[in-house]
Structure formats: C-alpha cells, structure tokens
C-alpha cells in the first residue's frame, strides 16, 4: 500500500478537479429553443409566434441567413414571414388552411432553426394545431374574418369550435431545406430539453456513484482478504473504504435530489419531490437502500467492542451489503421503469447523453473524483493505522 503515501496522483487529482470545476462551468451551452409562444394555433388563422432562442446569434453578421421551419412528421413547412428581433428572439407567422388540417401526420409541429453560427437546432412538439369544424348557419353569426364559436362556452376545449368558411388563408407550403452548416461551430455543451444548464451536474452527480462503486468493490476485496488471511490491516482498509462509500453515496443522493427537483420534478414542492425521489424511481429507492445498508454496517461495527469479532462479522456483513448494492443500483433499475438514463430501456452515455465536449470534462471528472475518494480513504487508513500502532 505504498501508493497511500505517494503524492503525484494527489496533485493530479487537484489539477483534474480544478479543470473540471472551472472549465465545466465556464463552457457555454449550445444554442437551443427554450420556448415558443403561443403553444397552440388554429387553422385558417395567420398566427404570429414569438420564438425565444438560448445562446443564439440571430443578429450576428456571421450568422448568415437565419432560417426556420415548422416540421410535421418528415415534412418541413415554411413560415409566411420571419422577423429577427434580437440575438435571442424571432417573430414568425405561420398558417394552415382548413382544407389542409387533416393532411398532417401529427397535430404537433417541431420548430427547427438554422444559421451559420448556431447550426441546426430545434424544439420538439413546440406548437399544436387545434383542428376545427366548419361554421354552420344555425349559429346565426356572420363574419368576414375567421371566426371561432365555442360550442359549450369553454375557451380551451380542443375540438368544440367552428371555422368560418369564407377564410382566405392558403395552404402551408412544404419547403426545400438547404443549410450551409448543420452543426454549430461553438465549443459548447449539448442543449438538452429538461436539463438545460443543469447538464453540468453530470460532472458531480455521476462520479459520486462511481466513487461509491469503486469503494464498495475495494471494501469487498479487503473483506474477503481479511476472512482469508486474518490481517487487521485488511479490516481497516475495508472499513475506511466503506466510510468513503457512504460519504460519496450521500453526496450522490444530495446532488441527485437537487438536480431532479429542477428537472424531473420541476414545479413540485420539496415534500412531493422528495416522496417521488424516494419511492417513485427504483434507482433512487435502490440507492437509498444501499446507503442505508452501509450505514447499518457502521452501526454494526460500532456495536461490537471485541476487535477480532468486529472485523469478522463486519467482513461477512460487507459481502452481503455489496450484493444488496449491486442488486438495487445496477440490476433492478435495468429491468423496471426508471427515469435514469441507462435504465428501464433508456439509453445511457450514448450520443443522447454525452457529446465530445461533455466527454472532455466528464472523463477527467470521473477520474479526479475517484482519486479524491482514494485520497480521503488513504487518510482514514493512515489515521486508523496510527491509532492501532499506539494501542499496541
């Protein structure tokens, strides 16, 4: 265990974590569309939409031609007009005719944009077409404008309105899509709906579980070694790594709680959000059970005064705790539904989660945080070894 005392890897850990903390926060997010207003439109009406961009460069001279399409299924429809307000705002008008309303594959339209700096980016299912029926004479209302008459007086009822047949709105036209640059030329992290800026938490939350897994496996190895050879040092190694595993588990849970509060459970109070975290997602419940199992390991150790008995019983318990950890964190979430990537059929660490820019920070973060875990563990081991030496 000479590596406990060497310093080079500890300095490497310092460099990596400073790189991750500073670089990982300063790199901007790629361009994206957070919102489109209004969310719905009706046929035979020329609707003006305000589109908000995020980290976009609409007014920049290098942006070239700013283009926008409304995508339905595999077809791209042109807007009727497009007006750049500022770097992050665009106003566009779009309309579909009454005759056209049933020809769309879906009632939702994606908003897709492109310019030479920001590349192509989109907001999926940004606007919804609310289909209408023809005006009938028995309503007794005549108007030269497109007219909506609510059948039951409810303003937001999707299907209960009638259109005036005299509307002059033409069909939305299918566009030829031609772009100069499809991918943005910025050094930026991917823009992910739901996650937004919080994607940076990947550098903190995920490595915490990597530390826990590494420490758990380390403790398993030394627990088995203790049972085989009976050396007290091995018990010290195992118990120290479990301490770090609990600390990283708590940190992983805390970072995950805060992350999910602002992504999956946005709009919920802390009470319902915590209830959801603990009981609705199997991976979260599993992580909680695992951390609790290791907390019980520490309680078990604290309750036995005889050193050898404590070491033996805790080594045996540790083997069972590792099985619980593996089962609840790695096996069960993969066979049931879970919000976590890589579980319940969701993709994990693929092109959907990580891109080359995120990887430039995620891999150093994983290595750096695991090194920090070993560093804390090495200090705990050294303290316990000194205590043991003094007792002898």
């Amino acid at each position, binding site marked *: 265990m000479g590596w406990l005392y060497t310093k080079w890897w500890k300095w490497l850990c310092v460099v990596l*974590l400073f790189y991750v903390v500073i670089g990982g926060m300063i790199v901007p997010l790629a361009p994206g569309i957070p919102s489109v207003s209004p969310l719905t439109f009706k046929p035979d009406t020329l609707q003006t939409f305000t589109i908000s961009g*995020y980290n976009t460069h609409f007014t920049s001279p290098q942006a070239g031609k700013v283009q926008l399409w409304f995508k339905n299924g595999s077809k791209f429809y042109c807007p009727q007009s497009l007006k750049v307000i500022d770097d*992050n705002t665009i106003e566009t008008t779009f309309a579909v005719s009454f005759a056209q309303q049933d020809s769309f594959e879906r009632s939702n339209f994606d908003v897709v944009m492109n310019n030479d700096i920001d590349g192509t980016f989109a907001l999926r299912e940004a606007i919804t077409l609310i289909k209408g029926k023809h005006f009938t004479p028995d309503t007794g209302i005549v108007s030269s404008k497109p007219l909506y008459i609510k059948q039951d007086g409810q303003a937001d009822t999707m299907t209960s309105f009638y259109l005036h047949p005299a509307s002059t709105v033409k069909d939305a036209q299918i566009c030829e899509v031609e772009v100069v640059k499809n991918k943005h030329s910025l050094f930026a992290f991917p823009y992910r709906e739901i996650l937004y800026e919080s994607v940076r938490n990947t550098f903190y939350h995920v490595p915490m579980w990597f530390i826990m897994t590494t420490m758990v496996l380390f403790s398993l190895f030394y627990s088995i070694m203790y049972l085989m050879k009976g050396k007290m040092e091995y018990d010290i190694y195992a118990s120290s790594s479990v301490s770090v595993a609990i600390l990283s588990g708590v940190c992983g849970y805390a970072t995950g709680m805060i992350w999910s509060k*602002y992504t999956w459970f946005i709009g919920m109070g802390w009470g319902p959000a915590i209830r959801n975290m603990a009981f609705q997602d199997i991976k979260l419940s599993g992580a909680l059970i695992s951390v609790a199992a290791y907390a019980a390991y520490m309680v078990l150790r604290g309750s036995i005064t005889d050193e050898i008995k404590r070491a033996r019983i805790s080594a045996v318990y540790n083997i069972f705790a590792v099985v619980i950890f593996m089962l609840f964190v790695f096996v069960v979430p993969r066979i049931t539904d879970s919000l976590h990537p890589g579980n319940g059929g969701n993709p994990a660490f693929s092109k959907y989660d990580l891109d080359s820019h995120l990887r430039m920070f995620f891999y150093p973060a994983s290595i750096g945080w695991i090194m920090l875990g070993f560093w804390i563990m090495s*200090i705990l081991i*050294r303290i316990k070894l000194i205590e043991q030496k003094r007792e002898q």
Partner: protein
Amino acid sequence: MRKFLSMFLVLFTATVLNAQGSANTGDIFADNLKIYTAVAVLAIILGFIFFFLFRLEGRLKKLEEGK
C-alpha cells in the same frame, strides 16, 4: 454526530445558493456574470478541501515519523 449534521447542513444550503436564474427564460448564463461568482465560490471551496487534505497529510506524516 455534530460533523454529520454540519455536513448535511452544508449540502442542503447549496440549494439556496441559486447562482443562475430560471433556465427557461432565455437568459444567457454568463451574461450577468453570476456564473463567474459561482465558479469562484466553487474553486475556493475546492481549494480549501485540498488545503485541508494536504495539511492533514503533513500532520499524519509527522505522527507516523513519531515526532
């Protein structure tokens, strides 16, 4: 126990240190310079952790050498 309580306190007060505005409003993250404040705070915290660990190592070395 006191150490654990203070650790939990530090972990959960992090939620009120909300350096960014709402992600959905279209504000540019770095425009209002809040991001640099967040980075500075994080770097200082990390620096203190490393300083503490190195100092602890120095003390342990002295104890191991029997000084």
